[in-house]
């Protein structure tokens, strides 16, 4: 099913081009040139792309209003305002901030990440090397033997957290805090131990991991 993107942008040239690009990438784009009437499209919108400098109400005001009414719809600010102050103000309510000029691939990638993060896309089946993963049913199958791989709760949480952020590097503290829900202490080896056990179960060769990639000194990444 095509996802609906509500796109608010007053610049005709940029608006037309972004709409076209995102449509080509398989989204249904509703493009408005001002914030007027935006709320009427929120019921069907899966994500909002919002410019800040708009005629009438600015993007900050519109975004805050939309977020208040529809907290479960992600908002991505797409603005030519690049100062730290603007970003901080924007990220009070918005979920991501992209500055112009941007690469369309970057915008598309961020849109996808946001949709995933908010559970708007739930891929029924992920094929990852020899693994078939049914995220919605919490089942991981080794496609070579068709045997289900049984993970502990923590291992499963770590793995799904990585899967929900495909192609993104996640730092140790990010993963630890998402899974354990408490602040990560520098030098804590718990996460490393869990990942080693996880790899023993899912990797073909745990000493040369293919699925969960270690980015030395930074974190882990799952490429899809």
């Amino acid at each position, binding site marked *: 099913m095509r996802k609906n993107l509500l796109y608010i942008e007053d*610049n005709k*040239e*940029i608006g037309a*081009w*972004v709409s076209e*690009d995102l449509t080509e990438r398989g989204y249904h784009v509703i493009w408005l040139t001002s914030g007027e009437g935006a709320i009427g499209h929120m019921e069907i919108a899966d994500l909002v792309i919002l410019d800040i*400098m708009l005629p009438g109400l600015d993007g900050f005001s519109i975004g805050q209003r939309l977020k208040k009414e529809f907290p479960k719809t992600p908002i991505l600010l797409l*603005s*030519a*305002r*690049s*100062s*730290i*102050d*603007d970003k*901080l103000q924007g990220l009070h309510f918005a979920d991501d901030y992209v*500055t*112009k*000029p*941007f*690469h*369309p691939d970057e915008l598309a990638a961020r849109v996808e990440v946001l949709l995933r993060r908010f559970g708007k896309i739930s891929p029924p089946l992920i094929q990852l090397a020899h693994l078939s993963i049914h995220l919605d049913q919490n089942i991981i199958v080794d496609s070579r033997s068709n045997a289900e791989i049984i993970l502990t709760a923590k291992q499963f949480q770590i793995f799904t957290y990585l899967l929900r952020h495909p192609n*993104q*590097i*996640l*730092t140790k*503290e990010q993963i630890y805090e998402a899974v354990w829900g408490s602040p990560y202490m*520098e*030098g804590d080896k718990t996460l490393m131990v869990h990942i080693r056990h996880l790899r023993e179960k899912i990797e073909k060769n745990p000493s040369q991991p293919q699925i969960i990639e270690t*980015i*030395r*000194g*930074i*974190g882990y990444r799952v490429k899809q």
Partner: protein
Amino acid sequence: MKIRQSLLMKYLLIITGALILWPLVLPIYYIPKEFLDKEIKQKIMYLDTEKLEQMWHREASKLNGATPEKINKRLQTLKEQYSMATMFWVDADGNTKLMSPNQINIPNQWTLQDSVEFMKKSVGTGPFTIVSYIGGDSNQGFMVFQVPRSLTEPLSASAIDDMYLLVFAFLVFALFLFISWLFFSKIRRRLVQLQTAMTEAGETGIPDKVAISKIDEIGQLGQAFNHMIDELTKSRKREQEEEALRKQLIANISHDLRTPLTTIRGHAYSLQKESLSPKGEESLHLIESKVDMLSQLLDNLLSYTLLSAGKYTIKQKETDMMRLIRASLVSWYPVFEKEGFEVDVRWPEKGLVWNVDPQWFTRIIDNLFQNVVRHAKSGRYVGVHTEEKEGRNVVVIEDRGPGMNNGSHEKGAGIGLSIVSLMLKEMNLDWTIESSSSGTRIYLHEKN
């Protein structure tokens, strides 16, 4: 200000009051005594001895040829008037008459020897004595008037000895001191209040206005101060408005330049989908990279302007540096990966905590990585690690590019490094750069 409200006037009033009061201290002290003490009136009578002598001689001559009864009667009347005096008279035969009060050392029958003895005594140390012949004639006898010397002596001698007068004078003096002290302490209190009001900054960072209760010299000072505060508030407001305008202007310029850049970038991207000659592809790639550069330049320009004007909000806090740098590395890793860099990250066992603004420090790291990607591509290496140097923890960012002095095919690093320098300085951090043809090492550390 009316002259009578002035502090000067009030002070002159106090001084004048004191000057007028001082000479009146003695009279004021004695007047109540006059009324209370009848005796003093009596005492005063004996002060003027000349007058007493005249009176006695006059009385004596008036009694010329009078009978003893008449003389007795007159002396009794006089005795009533001068109650503290001793009076008697001696008749022609040398008999003492009407001695009141009775005195033992006065003979009843006078001989010539007695008279000489008596006169000798009265001239020397004895009581003050007046002797007068009755009717001015030695044959009719004489009459004597005696008062103790203590009564005829001037009062002033006794005034100095008067303890109460001293206390009274001291009290008057103390009263004057107290009034003066009250006057000056009141002035002092108001001045201190004013000083406090001038030093303590209100909500806006400017001292609040003071309340004015009296229109005197200090009140006028308060008014002048309030006027100054008004001016200050106005100029602060104006400055803020100008600052906001300038900030807005810079933000608008940056925005207005970015908008067409976005369109250029978009169309360049659309062109990629068309079939192009290799030369066309190359031009397109150049356009894209220049758009990126321009956009970063704009970003730096905006930051630099705000920073150098000191208008960048800074929120320093104790920050886990490893976590912060790691977060930056997460976003830069794909870029390094794409350019074929080796990313070498090594962390210390224990954490590293510095007091920085996380946003600012991220910006610093971004600028440094940006330079690595732009100018040190040939080295294909970026290293991030911490080490101990001269007894302090240092964050090192290292590349194996051609070095900073050897130039680079892309210019524009200047402003990025200026921003790094400014931001480090603001956060009380410092840096050193070691650059050679085999690479550049940048050391970031806390200032001592």
